């Protein structure tokens, strides 16, 4: 089964699937923004924890391989990125670690180290929050949510159709690659490239033909220009706004209060022999 199918299955079997998609989106975005706005490290740690809890609840503690891989990949990228930031500190400040690596000057200061940590934690908080959202909201629900805030119909329907056809086309593409293999399409790298190109062209042609036939079929089924949802998820109630505002304000003040509480450089200093 392709990864896309797994994500889709995941979203539909999530416990949070019937929560209002707009509400979820609002909540997640506000938490993200607050984490970016405050200077304290505590807030993104808190939002990260909230993200993990939501993900665990949504997937019923069974985090599938694909999600774990996505998180793992994100963490690795963050580590590399943050690592780069941490070693490029301002030259006017005293260095915790000074070194030269090939043509590169490593100048790690307390400020740069803390900055790096802040960025890292904010980033993984963002990842977990967005994944909690994605793993519990199938795309049609999202499109329905956009429609309810009067996003142009063409865009939302386009999203749903792309989503639906992406599966079919992917299926077709993979089957064509299998067929190429059977006709020795992988016998050499030039041949393999030609097979790939052929499969892509074939999938494209298939999509055109499918489009034509689907247009006729949609017309026959009295398509009115939008896809009605049979069991619409709940629309955003006032409670979402209340909870989101409450969390947002609460976290903001928490940020103000705990600013400077965690100084990663000083915390980790003894391990590295700084200070």
């Amino acid at each position, binding site marked *: 089964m392709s990864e896309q199918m*797994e994500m889709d299955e995941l979203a539909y079997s999530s416990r949070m699937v019937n929560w209002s998609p707009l509400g979820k989106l609002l909540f997640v975005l506000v938490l993200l923004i607050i984490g970016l706005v405050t200077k304290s490290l505590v807030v993104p740690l808190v939002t990260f924890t909230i993200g993990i809890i939501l993900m665990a609840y949504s997937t019923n503690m069974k985090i599938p391989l694909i999600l774990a891989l996505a998180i793992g990949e994100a963490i690795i990228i963050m580590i590399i990125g943050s690592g780069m930031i941490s070693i490029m500190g301002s030259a006017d400040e005293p260095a915790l670690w000074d070194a030269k690596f090939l043509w590169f000057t490593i100048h790690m200061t307390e400020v740069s180290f803390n900055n790096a940590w802040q960025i890292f934690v904010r980033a993984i908080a963002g990842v977990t929050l967005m994944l909690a959202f994605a793993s519990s909201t199938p795309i049609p629900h999202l499109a329905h949510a956009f429609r309810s805030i009067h996003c142009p119909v063409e865009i939302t329907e386009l999203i749903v159709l792309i989503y639906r056809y992406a599966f079919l086309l992917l299926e077709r593409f993979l089957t064509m690659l299998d067929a190429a*293999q059977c*006709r020795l399409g992988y016998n*050499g790298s030039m041949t393999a490239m030609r097979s790939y190109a052929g499969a892509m*062209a*074939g999938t494209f042609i298939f999509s055109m033909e499918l489009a034509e036939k689907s247009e006729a079929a949609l017309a026959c089924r009295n398509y009115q220009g939008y896809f009605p949802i049979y069991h619409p998820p709940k629309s955003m109630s006032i409670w979402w706004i209340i909870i989101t505002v409450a969390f947002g304000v609460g976290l903001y003040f928490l940020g103000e209060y705990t600013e400077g509480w965690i100084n990663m450089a000083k915390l980790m200093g003894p391990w590295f022999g700084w200070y």
Partner: protein
Amino acid sequence: MTDGILKADKVVYSYSRKGPKVLNEMCIDIPKGKKTALLGCNGAGKSTLFSVLNALYKPNDGVVYYDGKSLTYKHKDIIKMRTDVSILFQNPNDMMFKPYVWQDVAFGPENLKLPKEEVQKRVDEALFTVGMEKYRESPIMKLSYGQRKRVTLAGVLAMEPSVLIMDEPTAGLDPQMAYEVMEIAEQLNSKGVTVVMSSHDTDLTYSWADEIRVLDGGKCMYAGAPEPFYSDHRMVQKAGLMRPSVFMMNKALSDLGRCDLEPFPKTQTQLAVKISDCADREFGKLYIVKVDRDVDIEPVLESNSLKGKSTGVYGISTRISLNRTGFVPDFYYNGPENCTMKCLDGHDAVLLCDPSMVATARSSVDFINSNGYGNITVQEIDPKA
């Protein structure tokens, strides 16, 4: 289990870790040089089995053997196997890679790294076999479903495999085209190619196959001759299938005492003769003329005083010759059966036959003669002799 050219031993396969086992300790063998039909309802695992036998998918457990040796899944070995074993997928759109017909048919032979002249020769031959030579330069997008199916068959034929696996080759084809596909399969087998076909059409496979393999729930529930399987209604029902109509009619009439159960007729003609009690009538004579692609038909008929008799055709080289000379036969489809029927009716008939297909062409007549249902004289004529 006898050793066939392709064998699966306790193969287990599922598409995803938590998913159901599509192949569940499947043990199956495909006999070499024979025509085998793979039957089973949707979800029994037919297409998956083909993909596993062709090393497209590696089984989670169990071993796949090709020609007595287990598959190593090394690139070189797989390539070697795929030069011998070809699959024809059910949906032709899954198999088309190039914009023009001749390019797509050439795809396989080019990948075999054959010289250009050889590739072109194979493309021409293959297109002729499936009757699409006029569409050589045509873009594939313009072709109908049936035409595309024929082009993909040509693509597979151009690889000249020794084992041909076909997944529902007649699905979606109109009856005439379906018949042509079956004739091609028959012709390939007469040249020694092992042909395996999966189908729902029990009528079609009954008259064609030497042996059947029935899949159910990821296992092979029956392997062998078709009749014992179809005689057990519980097995047939469990497998999700229906019994072929010729078989049912034979059984019905034998239960009534109108005839013996055996020998089992495989075609309508054989059935009709068996139940008709006509052993003492006047029969016509059947002339089988071996027509190679470069034989001119009219002069041959003249010189053997066969003009004016009903004519039927059978086999690829005959059709090529037909095309070339413009001769129009009485029976374009189902030549052997129609000619046999004519003889039963008391008239002579001429069957223009591909030299390699004579044995198959005679099968109904031989059935009638050897079981005493009638006595049709057969004369084989070789224009080149």
